[in-house]
């Protein structure tokens, strides 16, 4: 399998909004280190998941790859080409190949556009189709995402749809160009449980039918486990563990991953598990602890951890971990 997307040493620092006066007197700028040097690649046809707690930089990574944000440092390759600096028309062309679906189905559709326009507008933007032609393509795509019969939906406004339907519309919009790569940013986390499975199945089917590759973003490891091929666990802007899913769930190595897994509720009242307790609060992304950024909460921390930042290393085949004490 070839790599469709490759990210190298990607960083994104957001300057902290400061008042005029503070800008004048501050000795140095402070930053939210939303993404802090991550490297990974997504293979063609796979579902690669970024998982982690809120605020760890998942969305930022997704938006960086899709070039909705300018990276602070690092390179992004798409099909082997460096797209980090693409601009203007070239970037617009790239947009046809990479798409994104967002978490909030209520906010990701323009409330004033009918479905037919919401889905078909990208075609107009790229001067690919208009009017009737556009409508036909839209009908086709709506059918694909399971909104049947599609004619029923074209003239509705988003507020007339349920959350699940909206997310399907969003999916339809993102596949209208037949893209190769889709960033799915928590596409099901705001959707009712009874509807989730259908949507996940739909995404899996689309992957098969259209040969898509997903970068799947979620904080729900159960969903991640169900859907993905490979998973990267992020903590405060860094990937702490990355592996294929079997290896990760069977053999979680990083203490954070372990804690995470042990905290996931199991829908079985008869099974009681031992939980790995973490102490302390999640540090803010502005004041990332020195050394290993997890050491403030780590049950196994030692002196070394607060001094040196561990590098992510391949401890087993295709299993990467960033911890001083886990070596191959």
């Amino acid at each position, binding site marked *: 399998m070839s790599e469709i997307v490759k990210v190298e040493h990607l960083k994104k620092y957001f300057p902290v909004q400061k008042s005029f006066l503070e800008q004048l007197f501050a000795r140095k700028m402070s930053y939210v280190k939303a993404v802090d040097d991550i490297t990974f690649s997504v293979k063609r046809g796979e579902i690669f998941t970024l998982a982690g707690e809120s605020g760890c930089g998942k969305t930022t990574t997704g*938006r960086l790859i*899709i070039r*909705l944000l300018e990276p602070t440092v690092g390179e992004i390759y798409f099909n082997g080409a460096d797209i980090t600096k693409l601009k203007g028309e070239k*970037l*617009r*062309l790239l*947009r*046809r190949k990479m*798409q*994104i679906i*967002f*978490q*909030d189905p209520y*906010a*990701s*559709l*323009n*409330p*004033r*556009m009918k479905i037919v326009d919401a889905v078909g*507008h*990208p075609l107009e*933007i*790229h001067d690919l189709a208009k009017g009737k032609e556009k409508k036909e393509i839209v009908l086709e795509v709506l059918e694909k995402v399971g909104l049947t019969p599609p004619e029923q939906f074209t003239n509705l406004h988003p507020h007339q749809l349920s959350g699940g339907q909206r997310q399907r519309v*969003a999916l339809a*919009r993102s596949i209208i*160009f037949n893209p190769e790569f889709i960033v799915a940013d928590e596409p099901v986390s705001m959707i009712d449980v009874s509807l989730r499975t259908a949507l996940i199945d739909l995404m899996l089917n689309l992957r098969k039918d259209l040969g898509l590759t997903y970068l799947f973003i979620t904080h729900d490891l159960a969903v991640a486990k169900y859907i993905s091929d490979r998973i990267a666990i992020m903590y405060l802007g860094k990937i702490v563990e990355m592996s294929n899913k079997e290896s990760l769930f069977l053999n979680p190595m990083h203490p954070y991953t372990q804690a995470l897994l042990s905290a996931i509720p199991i829908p079985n009242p008869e099974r009681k598990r031992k939980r790995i307790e973490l102490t302390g609060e999640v540090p803010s992304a502005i004041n990332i602890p020195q050394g290993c950024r997890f050491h403030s909460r780590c049950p196994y921390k030692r002196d070394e951890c607060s001094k040196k930042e561990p590098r992510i290393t391949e401890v087993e085949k295709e299993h990467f971990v960033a911890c001083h004490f886990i070596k191959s």
Partner: protein
Amino acid sequence: MSKVKIKQSILARLIPRLTSLTKKGPSGWMAILGIIILSALVIMTVIAPWIRPHDPIKTGVGPIRAPPSSQFPMGTNHLGQDMLSRILCGGSIMLQISTLSVLVCFLIGVPLGLFSSYVGGIFDRACSLVIDAIYAFPGLVIAIAIAAMLGPGVVNMALSIAVVYIPSYFRIVRSQVLSIKELTYVEAARASGAKWHTIVFRYIFPNVIPSIVVVATINFADAVLTAAGLTFIGLGVTKDVPDWGWDLTDGRALLSSGTWWVITFPGIMIILLALGFTLIEEGLSELLNPKLQR
């Protein structure tokens, strides 16, 4: 499309919107009441030339300061002009001034707000600074100063009122754009490669319209009141057109001598006109308030 067709299609779009207002509770009814009042006033003004009993500016069509009677249902004023005819025809000036001022505000304030907020940076800062500075002045003071500067007349009055209101449009548009700009669907549009003008006009602007409508209605109401105020301090239109503002000002001078009808009727009309707009505004702003919706 022929004119008739266009009209039909506009009606076809409007009517369901209006009827849908009735389903939205008291706020919807308030807006509808406002719309009814306004439509009545507009219709009255439009057909006034055919239904008025007398020439509204001809003096001495009746005795001076005659109280309401069957011949002069609203009495006559101090020049013996027929108040009923003046009331019927007098809305025109108010409507012209307010419409024109809203138009001007809209045409300047909205694009400026859209542009400034979307472009951001220094330009935005500069614009906001200027607008904020204007905003710090009491509106009427600016209106008076500019009206005095431009001289009387419908257009000039409208312009002077417009200057006062441009900041409101600018600010509402700007703040709305700034928040809408961050919304996911705008991001989605960017992700599909939309250019900035497409984003502004297809994705942002339509969603700002409701807020603009709210500002516009209150602008209308204020324009009416400000126009009356300008006339009151002598910066109104000339006397040879019927104008409620003038009648109100005249009526005020006459009221103390027991001539209640010269102030009462234009007073009611101006209040009604302004009320029509404030009712719509009151209704809409509640209906459109996202924080009050569930």
